[in-house]
């Protein structure tokens, strides 16, 4: 027994020593190499920012015809003179990524307001099980709240979901098959999969009555991206809840920016049923987070079809006017 205790003590002491060596000489380089996102978190504190905007590609994407190519976050900053603004932008990011980005902002900063992008699609299976998740989750390992050596061990032993594109796709399919869709009125399809299959089978017809394959595929994308219902156990809801707690702890004013979706197109291609789900989901989010003291900016239907850049895939990439609308709404709510 005595020998065992000595062994355990020696091992513990060695681990503490290793952690110290790693933290002193290797940790920073590893962070920069494997979790480069963290640099953005450090930067906003180093730049003495008072307002931080967290976003994904919607923040920085602009159209070829745009004269004003600024980010949404820069447009917000323009409307808040005297407030030093910064942004952290990462493609395909979602609430879990935002949580760790915020967690890694060094303490003792001047931040008082945090605007977090709330992308409706990020709550759906298509995004939750996106093939980009493996790379994103890998980047998050070193940003978690364990001792540095432990985080490196978790990275070494691949403590993040490693799946192929097909496997991620299968997970999304499973979710669409198993999760029921509940409408308060009779609806012919019980799940997203059933709905999508019906659309794929029937097809969207052009003006001559022929099957329009491109439109059929676009309709299918809309269903796969928006035909879901947010519930309390949604992983993104849990992440936003964690963000709320973190903001309370750090004394930040929190603003959730629900991005505009192409509701015009959704209604035109799929109809009111899809729009019902989109509105219902946004209502859920507004209600849930306003009750927790968060300022929720609802931009769901703020931008018209013409302002969306991508035509063959639903995204939140807007032309100049679209970005300005979003920025104005957010700035307005922050001012008030």
């Amino acid at each position, binding site marked *: 027994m005595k020998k065992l205790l000595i062994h355990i003590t020696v091992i513990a002491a060695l681990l503490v020593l*290793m952690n110290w060596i790693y933290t002193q000489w290797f940790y920073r380089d590893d962070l920069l190499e494997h979790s480069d996102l963290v640099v953005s978190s450090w930067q906003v504190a180093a730049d003495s920012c008072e307002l931080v905007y967290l976003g994904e590609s919607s923040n920085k994407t602009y159209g070829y015809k745009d004269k004003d190519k600024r980010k949404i976050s820069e447009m917000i900053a323009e409307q808040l003179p005297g407030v030093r603004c910064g942004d952290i932008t990462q493609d395909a990011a979602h609430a879990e990524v935002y949580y760790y980005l915020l967690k890694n902002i060094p303490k003792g900063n001047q931040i008082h307001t945090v605007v977090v992008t709330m992308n409706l699609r990020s709550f759906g299976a298509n995004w939750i099980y996106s093939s980009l998740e493996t790379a994103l989750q890998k980047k998050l390992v070193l940003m978690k709240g364990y001792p540095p050596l432990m985080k*490196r061990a978790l*990275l*070494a032993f691949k403590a993040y979901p490693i799946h192929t594109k097909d496997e991620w796709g299968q997970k999304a399919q499973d979710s669409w098959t198993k999760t029921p869709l509940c409408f308060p009125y009779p609806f012919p399809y019980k799940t997203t999969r059933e709905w999508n299959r019906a659309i794929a089978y029937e097809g969207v017809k052009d003006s001559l009555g022929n099957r329009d394959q491109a439109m059929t595929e676009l309709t299918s994308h809309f269903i796969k991206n928006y035909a879901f219902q947010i519930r309390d156990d949604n992983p993104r809801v849990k992440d936003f809840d964690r963000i709320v707690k973190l903001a309370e702890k750090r004394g930040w004013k929190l603003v959730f920016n629900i991005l505009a979706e192409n509701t015009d197109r959704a209604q035109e291609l799929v109809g009111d049923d899809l729009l019902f789900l989109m509105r219902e989901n946004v209502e859920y989010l507004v209600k849930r987070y306003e009750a927790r003291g968060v300022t929720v900016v609802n931009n769901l239907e703020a931008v018209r079809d013409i302002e969306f850049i991508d035509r063959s895939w639903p995204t939140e990439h807007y032309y100049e006017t679209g970005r300005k609308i979003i920025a104005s709404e957010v700035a307005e709510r922050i001012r008030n």
Partner: protein
Amino acid sequence: MVFNSIEYLIFLPLVVVLYYLIPHRHRWILLLTASCVFYMWFVPKYILILLVTIIIDYSAGLLMERDADSPKKKKRWMVISITSTLLVLFIFKYLGFLNDSVVALCQSLGLNVNTSVKLILPIGLSFHTFQSMSYVIEVYRGNQKAERHFGYYALYVMFFPQLVTGPIERPGNLLRQLHEEKSFNENNLARGLRLILFGFFIKMVVADNLGGYVDEVYAHPEEYNSWSVWLAMVFYSFQIYGDFFGYSTIALGSALLMGYEISDNFRSPYLSKNIAEFWHRWHISLSTWFRDYVYIPMGGSRVKFGRWMYNILVVFVLSGIWHGANWTFLFWGFAHGLLHIIEKALRSSFGKQEPSGIPSHSKFIQGLLNLLGVVRTFLLVTLFWVMFRSTDFANMKAMFTAAFSQFDGGRQLVIDPKLWLFLGLFMLSDIILRGRRFDSWCEDKPVLLRWSICALMVFLTIVFSSVNNFPFIYFQF
């Protein structure tokens, strides 16, 4: 479940603790359940294939023993068992390849054939089918009593430390040990942990870090200069060795934690002076399997020269095809067989003569000749690995072309200096160990040195492991 995963780091200690907590008579249930969980972590449904081969071979063993007095019947059961096991192997591993080859042949003859067979290869199929077959053959030969307890037989085939990548065990070793009552032994625990640690270092720090460079060059050999291509070829030699040796060492260590001694699979293969010696040191459990169950039954070397050559080529081609259903593997096996024959022929012609003017007792000269032999064998094996690693003949051709014709142009591979340190440590360990196992080498070292080495390995493994995911190379076989 893979060894170098966080899941395994939780799974293994849990199984080991439970193993020693429960009485011997119930341990097979624990180990069998653990093995099922371990295997089903990959693709759950493929356990059914394992179950089919287990039932067939278990029944065959009992039937052969029942009909021990009738050689004809006994042989019949053996043939049925082996054929069905090989059929499973053929369907999942070779049917797609055969189909593609026939389609390609027909298309080259102008025939419009376009069939496709797409089956996912169950992980470790080649390993456990061979282990299963060795049981049937040993029972047939009368060297092994048929196992009456289905659970123990299933555990023999499925024992998780060596289930998916070997070593391919024989019933005389593993099945016997499974029946033995193992009591907790502190020394086994320490040795097992050391082996696991050493295996992690070799696989995760050496092999996986080399893998990135190898993949880069093999994907676009035409873009790199010849020096870089040669470097990638040498790196692959160490990557595949580190990958397989590391994994086998973790398997050995994992089994040892519960008191089971499974066979060594490697004995410093790159220190071999010729190809024959290489095959005595590389993937030993497979080489001895082919020796005992194919080569010797065919007559081995006690036949006429022509037949002996044929025997060698058959064994090596089969070994090549065992690795994968692709012409490149067949070619690789054939090349090794051919070289083996050439070396043997040369040795039988010149081997007995003393080099003129060199005194037979000159240790220096002998050492130099040995060193030359080691370098020559390593270079040849490295060249042959190109066939093994290439995705197809076009890739192989591109690699060889780039290796010999792009000395003046192309990109230079930029290597992280730390990699040389890790590679150096790996080579040094191979030279120091020289066929000994790391755990036994450690045993007679002072405590402080032992602890320092282990602490260093823990640190290197955690801090310098590749963060990229390199699945174990032999999983595909």
